[in-house]
């Protein structure tokens, strides 16, 4: 039960709640004064925005495709990023230096440009043992998004491993652990706790970046949105954009909050 006077954090929460209420009220007033028509247009098209289908099933595109794209790209980035991350931590110079170069190249290139480059560099179809396999745009989008993500993924691994106190290494070595065993049994279990919030933030960032996949021509939420908007008048466009923005916000904000909470809980343990 909150006691009066309210604490600063409580006061802030009350005000934020009030702002959300005010926005809802504003939407209600707008709906009452003619906006309802526009909202009903959005409501009618919402299944298409979410699933790419007017009936809402099966999932063929729209926001669900963005989620699928994000998951696939994250899985690929995890594999690539792990190799890259451990490459950067390697003691051997001929592994470490190229890994750093690749990581820096991928991290310094814009996501959109990399996506475009992958779109045009990866051939339309490839021949594997005489069988020609067409590469769909979706696969290209996954690769294009996974590359910059893997560089960030690798940086998170490197940062977390290097943030482990050097005493841990020395202690493990003096106890006679083999180098691989030091990683597996001492360093990684501790580093993993610090990596997870970073990975979650990265996933949220990737999810936001999946909106760029519209340039590859796949039927993601923005492509769908643009197709739908071609049939709508100028006024309704605003409502559609707000809906699309809200979709991303509703998906990414909880992840960001959770990541921050985890980060806070990990922050305390140094050593």
């Amino acid at each position: 039960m909150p006691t009066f006077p309210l604490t600063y954090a409580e006061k802030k929460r009350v005000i934020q709640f009030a702002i959300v209420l005010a926005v809802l009220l504003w939407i209600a007033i707008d709906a009452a004064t003619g906006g309802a028509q526009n909202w009903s247009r959005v409501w009618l098209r919402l299944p298409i925005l979410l699933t790419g289908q007017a009936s809402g099933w099966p999932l063929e595109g729209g926001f669900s495709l963005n989620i699928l794209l994000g998951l696939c790209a994250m899985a690929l980035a995890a594999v690539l990023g792990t190799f890259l991350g451990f490459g950067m931590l390697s003691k051997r110079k001929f592994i470490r230096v190229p890994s750093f170069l690749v990581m820096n190249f991928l991290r310094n290139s814009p996501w959109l440009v990399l996506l475009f480059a992958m779109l045009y560099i990866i051939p339309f179809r490839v021949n594997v043992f005489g069988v020609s396999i067409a590469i769909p745009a979706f696969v290209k989008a996954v690769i294009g998004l996974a590359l910059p993500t893997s560089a960030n993924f690798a940086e998170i691994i490197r940062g977390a491993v290097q943030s482990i106190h050097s005493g841990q290494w020395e202690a493990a070595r003096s106890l006679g652990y083999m180098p691989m065993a030091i990683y597996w049994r001492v360093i990684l279990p501790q580093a993993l706790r610090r990596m997870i919030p970073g990975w979650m933030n990265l996933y949220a960032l990737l999810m936001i970046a999946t909106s760029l996949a519209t340039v590859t021509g796949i039927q993601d939420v923005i492509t769908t949105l643009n197709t739908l908007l071609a049939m709508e008048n100028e006024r309704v466009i605003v409502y559609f954009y707000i809906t699309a923005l809200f979709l991303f916000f509703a998906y990414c904000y909880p992840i960001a909050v959770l990541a921050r909470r985890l980060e806070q809980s990990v922050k305390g343990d140094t050593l």
Partner: protein
Amino acid sequence: MLTLDYSWLADPVYQHWLLRGTLTTLELAFASSGIAIVIGLFGALALTLRIAWLDAFVELFVEIFRNTPPLLQMLFFYFTLSTIGLSVTDPRTGLSMPLLSAFSCALISLSLFGGALCIEAFRSGLESLPRAVTEAARSLGYTRWERFRRIEMPIASRICLPALTNIMTNQFKTTSQASVITVPELMYYAGQIYNDTFRTAEVMILVLFIYVTLVSLLSWGMSLVERALAFPGYGKGH
């Protein structure tokens, strides 16, 4: 295997396009970064004042801009600012013209996006200040504003320089998305060139290298600044 043909690069028209595109990109990146830092400073100031309603608004602003795609923000600003009423009637043709060009729409949306990130960076910088510093300033009789200007911000801005570097490079990379709303920057001209020459892979590889070089130069420059301003005992500075 890929065979690359760069003979089109000899054409002065394409060279000119690439140059102009790069200049527009630089302009957009630096202008939006500058505005973003100013927004970040004001936001951080608003947060240190500890006024609950101001804090609530700033936090909402940050969360909305951080958790939605910048591409969608740009499209939103581009298509809705004129609908909301920011348009003028062209006296010659009598047609309604949007008041803001694509460039200014991109600038506004990028500045707000970067500003949200900057507020967050400055806030975490201010939070990492040792309490003793602010307490010492208070006991020396500094007013709230003087404390922010002379004690807290100079230290915090140096602590959060790495984060600021990240934001600036990110800002630079995000400018490529302005091509979607037809801002004539590097990415836009790249599209023009490969529409002309059909050399898509070659153009994209070249543009990728231009971006990587520029962003690498920027982060290298910022790392020099970081080193010069490094704060003993914090971060990498020793």
